[in-house]
């Protein structure tokens, strides 16, 4: 009998051509906290979803509590004492807080009849333990993102698990909520519970982890006790080289003013945002998840109607717009953060994806000119080195990085003056990421202004000429290049009294 509560041995997994995991092995002892780190797309979530029974591994074995596990369903995994807090919020928004917390394992009498009293009282107790007070009858759709994250954590706690996986639980928590989370982790560990903790915030990892596993490009780099690591070493393990090398720079001077937004608000969290954008620069937007960065991007692009304020170009006769079609005409482009649901036409060919916004250029009287189209698609493929079997391949069968390039290619073809990139490197592997950075710089060199939203602080700091920080729907500060530090940004982004009211 081993001392490990969990062993995942030689796990491999690929998705439609993307090798997400290759021969990865991890081992966990009871009552320990394991940090799992790695870049975007390194395979952390995939590994945990395999553990959860949500995906089936292509190869490898899982030994849990001394027993080899075969093809368990999500429900069986939960029953066996493993609970997972997923990276993407996993709640049914129409259902109430309490129903979500106990979904799948409701306290019940005979015949599946629910014990509603217990459902609500136990939910309330769990939430109290997390230090928040919420009406457990409220549907989740009414909660803020941070509240939802806490409900997720409550859901995991409710399962009385022996092993809890937390996939970036802190991404949207700050201040007291975060402290509360850590103290709960401590008390769980005291009770012998094992925690696997995934986070991009390395400070947290150093604060709570006993041991750290690094993944890169789907492969295991190393597992080391925390006391044998320092921050620069860990980063180097993750990235494979010193950090500052990966951000290409250009030496251009600040161009002329191209676009201004004045006191814009939309029907979302976004309130009273103003910004100026200059030719050839990258304006970084930083903030916690849910701080309204995506809403800002959508408002700038005319995708959400403005309730007040104005966005206009200074060039191009001061054009302004009220919907995406007009924004595109005026020279804007938006690469949305959610590629699958907002950026890509997965059931259509790469060709159609690329030329969709520029149909007027490749048609004569509404009729497509295939030669013109072929040339454009071929050129785009060359320029971004997109790997695909043919231009007629459906987008869904391309790898994530190539999908993202496809979306970028589409917008570059519109010859924009302003490009808004919302999380442009999310889910993109490290090589492609580097190419995207280079591409952004090439755009700058052509005088194109870029707004870049990113949750990765090093990326924002490394790439941006200026950085705006958002907090609870407002722009709360600005850093010039070289002035920004992670700590400085986080401080502004998590400041509690900037109008934010989380609970």
């Amino acid at each position, binding site marked *: 009998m081993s001392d490990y509560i969990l062993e995942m041995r030689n796990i491999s997994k*690929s998705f*439609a051509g993307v090798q997400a995991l290759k021969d990865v092995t991890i081992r966990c002892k009871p009552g320990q906290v394991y940090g799992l780190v790695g870049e975007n797309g390194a395979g952390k979530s995939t590994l945990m979803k395999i553990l959860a029974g949500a995906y089936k591994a292509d190869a490898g074995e899982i030994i849990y509590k001394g027993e080899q596990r075969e093809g368990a369903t999500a429900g069986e995994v939960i029953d066996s004492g493993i609970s997972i807090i997923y990276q993407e919020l996993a709640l049914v928004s129409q259902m109430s807080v309490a129903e979500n917390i106990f979904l799948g394992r409701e306290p019940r009498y005979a015949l599946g009849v629910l014990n509603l009293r217990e459902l609500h009282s136990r939910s309330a107790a769990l939430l109290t333990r997390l230090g928040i007070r919420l009406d457990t009858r409220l549907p989740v759709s009414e909660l803020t993102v941070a509240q939802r994250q806490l409900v997720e954590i409550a859901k995991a706690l409710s399962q009385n698990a022996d092993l809890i996986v937390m996939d970036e639980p802190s991404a949207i928590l700050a201040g007291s909520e975060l402290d509360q989370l850590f103290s709960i982790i401590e008390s769980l560990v005291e009770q012998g519970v094992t925690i696997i903790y995934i986070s991009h915030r390395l400070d947290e990892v150093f604060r709570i982890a006993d041991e750290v596993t690094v993944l890169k490009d789907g492969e295991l780099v190393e597992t080391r006790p925390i006391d044998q690591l320092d921050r620069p070493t860990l980063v180097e393990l993750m990235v494979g080289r010193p950090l500052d090398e990966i951000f290409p720079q250009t030496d251009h001077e600040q161009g002329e003013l191209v676009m201004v937004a004045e006191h814009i608000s939309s029907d979302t969290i976004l309130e009273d945002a103003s910004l100026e954008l200059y030719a050839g620069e990258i304006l970084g937007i930083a903030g916690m998840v849910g701080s309204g960065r995506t809403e800002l991007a959508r408002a700038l692009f005319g995708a959400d109607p403005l309730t007040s304020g104005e966005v206009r170009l200074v060039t191009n006769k001061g054009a302004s717009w009220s919907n995406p079609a007009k924004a595109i005409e005026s020279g804007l482009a938006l690469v949305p953060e959610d590629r699958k649901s907002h*950026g890509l*036409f997965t059931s259509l060919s790469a060709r159609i994806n690329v030329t969709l916004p520029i149909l007027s250029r490749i048609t004569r009287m509404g009729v*497509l000119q295939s030669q013109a189209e072929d040339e454009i698609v071929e050129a785009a493929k060359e320029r971004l080195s997109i790997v695909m079997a043919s231009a007629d391949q459906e987008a869904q069968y391309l790898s994530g990085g190539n999908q993202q390039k496809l979306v970028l290619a589409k917008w570059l073809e519109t010859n924009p003056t302003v490009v808004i990139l919302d999380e442009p490197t999310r889910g993109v592997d490290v090589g492609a990421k580097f190419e995207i950075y280079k591409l952004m710089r090439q755009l700058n060199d052509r005088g194109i202004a870029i707004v870049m939203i990113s949750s990765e602080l090093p990326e924002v700091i490394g790439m941006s000429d200026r950085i705006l920080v958002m907090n609870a729907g407002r722009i709360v500060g600005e850093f010039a290049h070289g002035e920004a530090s992670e700590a400085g940004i986080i401080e502004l982004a998590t400041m509690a009294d900037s109008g934010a009211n989380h609970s």
Partner: protein
Amino acid sequence: MSVAKPHESAKQVNGWRARKFVADYGVYIALLLLLLAAAVLTPKLYEVNTIAVVMRQASQLGIVAIGQTLILLVAGLDLSIGGIFVMTSIVVADVTNGRDDLVIPAILIALALGALVGLGNGVLVTKRRVPPFVATLGMLVLVKGATQAYTRGVPGGFVPEVLGIVNQSWFVLSIPLLLWLGLNAVFMFVLGRTAYGRKVYAVGSNTEAARLSGISVDTIRISVYVLGSCLAVASGVVLTGYVGYVDRFIGTGLELDSIAAAIVGGTAFVGGRGGLLGTIAGVLLIQLLSTMALLMGLDIQVQFIIKGLVILGAVTLYSLANVEE
């Protein structure tokens, strides 16, 4: 530093090719099997007269199925076409009252009314976000009710003689068949070779992405419903000429048959995938089934059962092709 390793890429492409083959040609395989079966069971089917009959009858379903395919491509559905057939045949008889010279105005009026129904469908679906199923069902009841109120239950008037040309055949060629083929050619061109067609697929494939790409999504969806209704009017005119007089039950069942034809032909129920090439085969499949059943003297009830089983079989093929690994 390449994004996808070469061997993975090859594997991935092969999988994609295999799936694409089944998705694109599955219905033709089924059609071929049926034709082989016919050679044994009902050799009569291969005579010129029979082919002419099959083709002419298939055209009635086929023309509607073009519109239904367009609508399915934007993740919609149209149940209101049954009402449009009746309306068309009443307008034709009422306006012309048998006079040949009024046929064109009558058809134009019918098209205008049809477009109005399509507009109603489209507006309900886009602006009020009513699910297409209920929106077009409501319009069906409304159109039938309006026709009823207008005619006071008695569809009067005569169908002009000149519409009888839809009944002429030269070998296997006939006006409905030519119309069907012509419309197919036009709409295949529109879907495959024009900006409009691209937009239809884009809207069906990912509505929000289409909007963010600058496509006026609502306009495209509404226009597709309008086109669908106009094609139903066209089919209604053919049916009216075919029947030779106003019939309240004209075209009954074509709405569900046209959906079945498109789906069996590989057009996805969720939009953005499929096309007319498959729908043509779907239409022929359904028409051949019913003609063969008649040639074999099978009961009408057996036809219902066979049609249902064929739909299930064909769709199973697609669902197998789309299973994730």
